[in-house]
């Protein structure tokens, strides 16, 4: 059974379309990275999974249940780290976890949860005094209460230092090993490639890519980035380069030209530049990284 199933989902706010005709299926037990630049519609999609906002059109099912009509049942089995939340400033960390336990009607040791997310020493402090990173850990702790079947994490690494982001990934991995489906969003690929089975890339409300990390790697395999030092070049000069087949992206800052292309297109690229009257002083090649590919998708030069 699918843990998350979006079928032709559209959400409009007034005349702004946040999500457009989105189809997405996340099978049970998968770790799914939901990627895209800020404002792409990731949070709106997550908010529809949780019934915070209602779709204008389409069907949203979570854990086999209707996300709108059976939302309480969905949330009883789901741990959530929402985006743009606030904590209760006057309540301590422990009180927050106790509240999550009472809300999910489960028993447990609040201190053990705080220990797991690394803020046990702040259990008796009011959450209003917590840093952004500590709040993020606290809410992750609330999400983990009751051993959920599904974890929905909206930008979980924001506010965390690199060490904290790694701990967050470790927790995601542990949960996934226990059979929990994890759906999390990020605008940075680096945070998800280490833990995701599959990623979807959202841009302007539409899914532009959906693949496994391996699949994405295959897509960039053999791809190279050419960094060419020139005397002077403008964006207009690059039109001839962009027109070459095998070139996916070309940019310049005036002194250097950066081109993403297949390995066997390199000579043609240099030739095209020289034909445009640009003096090539030097060039070097780098292998294309997943990050380059992600940027190419999200900045709009590629579409699936």
């Amino acid at each position, binding site marked *: 059974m699918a843990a998350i199933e979006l079928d032709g989902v559209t959400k409009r706010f007034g005349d702004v379309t946040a999500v457009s005709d989105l189809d997405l299926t996340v099978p049970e037990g998968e770790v799914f990275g939901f990627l895209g630049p800020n404002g792409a519609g990731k949070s709106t999609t997550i908010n529809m999974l949780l019934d915070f906002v209602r779709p204008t059109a389409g069907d949203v099912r979570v854990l086999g249940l209707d996300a709108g009509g059976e939302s309480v049942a969905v949330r*009883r089995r789901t741990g959530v780290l929402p985006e743009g939340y*606030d904590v209760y400033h006057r309540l301590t960390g422990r009180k927050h976890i106790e509240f999550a336990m009472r809300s999910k009607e489960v028993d447990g040791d609040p201190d053990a949860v705080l220990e797991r997310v690394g803020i046990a020493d702040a259990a008796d402090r009011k959450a209003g005094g917590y840093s952004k990173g500590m709040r993020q850990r606290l809410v992750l702790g609330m999400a983990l209460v009751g051993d959920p079947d599904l974890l929905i994490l909206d930008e979980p690494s924001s506010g965390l230092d690199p060490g904290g982001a790694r701990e967050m990934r470790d927790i995601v991995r542990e949960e996934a090993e226990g059979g929990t489906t994890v759906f999390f969003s990020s605008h940075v690929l680096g945070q998800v490639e280490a833990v995701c089975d599959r990623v979807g890339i959202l841009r302007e409300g539409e899914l532009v890519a959906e693949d496994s990390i391996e699949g994405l790697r295959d897509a960039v395999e053999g791809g190279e980035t050419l960094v060419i030092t020139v005397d002077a070049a403008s964006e207009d000069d690059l039109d001839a380069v962009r027109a070459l087949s095998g070139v996916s992206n070309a940019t310049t800052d005036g002194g250097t030209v950066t081109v993403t292309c297949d390995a066997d297109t390199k000579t043609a690229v240099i030739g095209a530049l020289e034909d445009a009257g640009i003096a090539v002083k030097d060039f070097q090649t780098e292998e294309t990284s997943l990050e380059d590919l992600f940027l190419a998708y999200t900045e709009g030069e590629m579409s699936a």
Partner: protein
Amino acid sequence: MTWTAVARKDFQDAIRSRWVAALSVLFVLLVSAAAYLVRPAPGQTISSNQILNSLFVRDALVTTLVPLIALIVAYNAVVGERESGSLKLLLSLPHSRADVVFGKVLGRAGAIAAPIAVGFLLPALIFLVVPAVNFDVLSYLGYTLLTAVLAVCFVSIAVGFSTAASSSRRAIAGAVGIYFLFVPLWGAVRFPLQFYLGMGGGPSWLPLSGQQVLRMLTLINPTGSFKTVSNAFMQGALYTQGDVNMQVSATLMLLVWILVPPLLGLLWFQEADL
């Protein structure tokens, strides 16, 4: 149904606000000041009921100040969480929106009942030991409870606005509007109206007498219903003597004020995008 978890959280949160401590102090001071002002001459005694029925307690504190404070304690209950974002945290837990609204009513009811209880019961400790006061325990506790019920009516009104409003500014505008309608405005027109309707005035197209219109207006106003019930209670006549119909209607009307505003707010809240 997890609304009790919401209520408990909200009470714990609200009770830690400086407001609640300040209100407790204020209520203690006001009740004590009222007792001082109506104190008996040396050698004479006074009943605790006389203190409660004094202008200072019944008219100034209970039916003027308590509604205002209840509205202030509760107007931000839902819309405040909406604006800060903690509502997302709340609703990411398995609560329905109805759980949130009624949990809020219960939590804030507790948060206003606490200073009322402290405000009335702390001075009562003094009345108990001072020989000049004949302390009527039952009346005193009953009156304290009725005051809390009146406060809860206004908490419910404020939570209703707080649930339906899109900003806390609108919520407080609604709450203050209701307050002016029911307290100062009603206070200003009541006597002229009583006189006019009592003399047989009133719209002739209504199949009601002037007296009936006046009774209806009194009932609709929560402070009017409160006075009907509390006056009968203090005379030991509640539901037994006097205008029993009016007393029962007033009691039901208080219940309506507790339940209907949050329900109306919920109707809107159910459909809202957060």
